[in-house]
């Protein structure tokens, strides 16, 4: 167990094929997500990043292929068995998909009530309260309705709901889209912190180059209907593929890379300084 823990595969996708009518979105798509990593998924608009996520979580039935999550095959399972897998993941949809008739606190409690009806009302309230603080919402956000929240707060509330069951696996669909740069950076930090504290595995769809550079361990690139490459950003940069080069070497890609380098240098300096004081 200890030997394989390092490289245990949480999500395994093999030979996935998805199509809508005539247009084929995926063909022979393979992907592995390892335990404890943050895997970023990138690809041009319309390459089927969200469709891939929907196939993994069972919202979209693929034409062909196999999807395995936590070592359990996801296709053609009965509902009761799928429920046991659903308990172990949390999902943040693009628009946060909070239930608009429930308050933030009630939204967080929905999965808890659904899967663990025996929890006492008091414990449910306490759990909702600390989850709300943990994702960085203000303490008065609990009784508010989603319509009263800003976009960034809605996403945080969405994360709080996704984390309600303390999942092992978190799916995030463009978590920083539509956030201001400060909010987006704070969100990146939040995801990195949560992974650190809770040992999460994160499957992250994003267009945000800063997110890719700062928090992703590996990046999977979707193009030509399949995952054409998976690896760290330096590994991807070494590849000679037109789209990858354009994506990471374009003006925005370079800016993000420079920002990341500057950040790392600053961090290293601070660490050195702190270390000096301690000694």
């Amino acid at each position: 167990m200890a030997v394989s823990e390092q490289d245990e595969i949480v999500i395994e996708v093999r030979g996935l094929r998805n199509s809508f009518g005539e247009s084929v979105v995926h063909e022979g798509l393979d992907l592995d997500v390892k335990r404890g990593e943050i895997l970023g998924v990138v690809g041009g608009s319309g390459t089927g990043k969200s469709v891939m996520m929907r196939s993994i979580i069972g919202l979209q039935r693929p034409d062909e292929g196999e999807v395995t999550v936590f070592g359990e095959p996801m296709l053609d399972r009965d509902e009761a068995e799928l429920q046991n897998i659903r308990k172990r993941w949390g999902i943040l949809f693009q628009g946060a998909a909070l239930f608009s008739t429930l308050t933030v606190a009630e939204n967080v409690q929905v999965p808890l009530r659904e899967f663990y009806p025996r929890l006492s009302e008091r414990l449910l309230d306490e759990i909702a309260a600390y989850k709300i603080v943990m994702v960085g919402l203000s303490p008065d956000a609990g009784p508010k309705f989603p319509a009263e929240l800003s976009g960034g707060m809605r996403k945080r509330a969405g994360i709080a709901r996704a984390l309600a069951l303390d999942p092992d696996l978190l799916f995030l669909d463009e978590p920083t889209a539509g956030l201001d740069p400060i909010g987006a950076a704070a969100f990146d930090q939040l995801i990195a912190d949560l992974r650190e504290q809770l040992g999460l595995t994160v499957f992250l769809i994003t267009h945000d180059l800063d997110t890719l550079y700062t928090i992703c361990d590996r990046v999977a690139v979707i193009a030509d209907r399949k995952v054409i490459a998976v690896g760290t950003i330096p590994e991807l940069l070494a590849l000679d593929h037109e789209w990858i080069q354009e994506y990471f070497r374009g003006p925005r890609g370079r800016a993000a890379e420079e920002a990341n380098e500057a950040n790392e240098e600053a961090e290293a300096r601070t660490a050195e300084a702190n270390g000096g004081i301690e000694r």
Partner: protein
Amino acid sequence: MSSVARFTDSTEEGRRVLRFEGDLTLPRLGVLPNRLDRLKGSDFLIDLSGVGRMDTIGAWIVHRTARDRGGEIVGADEGAATLLRQVEKADQPVKVRPDPPAPFERVLTQLGEATIEAGRTFVGLLGFFGAMLLSIGHIIRQPRRFRLNAVVQRFEVVGVHAFGIIGLMSFLVGIVIAQQGAVQLRQFGAEVFTINLIGRSSIKELGVLMTAIMVAGRSGSSFAAQLGSMKLAEEVDAMRTIGVSPMEALVLPRVFATVLMMPLLGFYAALVAIVGGAVFCWVSLEIPPVTFVQRIREVVPLTDLWQLLIKAPVFGLIISLAGCFQGMQVKSDAEEVGLRTTTAVVQAIFLVIVLDAFFAVFFTEIGWL
């Protein structure tokens, strides 16, 4: 490997010791929180050395016990200690539910809010009507801005598509009136007056009233839902910034179409109701259709038809205004679209019936009996 969370409660060297064992994770918790709640006493030594896995909810329960009962946590491994620090940091006073107001105060507040809301709706509806008149004025001055295509499209949705259901409904209503009327009038040997009942009530009242209710349910609601969703998706704002007036592009075509379609539908409904009554009279009272038609022409005055044709467009105006007005009021979320749609239909039907009563009194006064 994994096992259900449990704890033992013992006294060692004069101190209460809670020894947790198993996995302190949500799926393995079982009744542990409830058992902990029932536990009496305080100042525990909380020993976590027997704990396998732990998640934030397990950590929270340990933290809460230590916080509320006064206790000391020992034997936490590195992961557990991190989690405990995390939940401790996240332990802040958080409002989970809105404050419940005092009952008396609440009733007063709701009453006041409802009154203000009713006043606002009335003023808003009046303002909306005014804005609509203004934009009709604009269109009269610049007839090119009239959106004929949109109006024709609404004709189809409001009028043509409603033919089937309104026809069926009116036919059945005609039969019911004839049957109920015949039963009562038979007691006086006046069965033949069933024809008067059918003819006059269908044309004067029922045809247009039932049509108005059906159109409010079909079209008034869909206006509110359509415009409401468009407001949510910021389509209406986009329209304004491009320079297209939502009043002209969205509201006027719907109002025109409903105002024009209502008399047609009402007349059609009255005719079909008479046909339904005729069928019943023929089958059940053995009055042949020819006699029926002749009798109808004798007993139904032309003023009945004028009443129908005057009332129908007014009802159409009310239904479409209520629908469009409520739709344009949507601001926050999907739930509001539903609420506004309901309000639109309720408001439309209520106003139609109130106005119908006024019309009845008015027409009697001017001698259209």
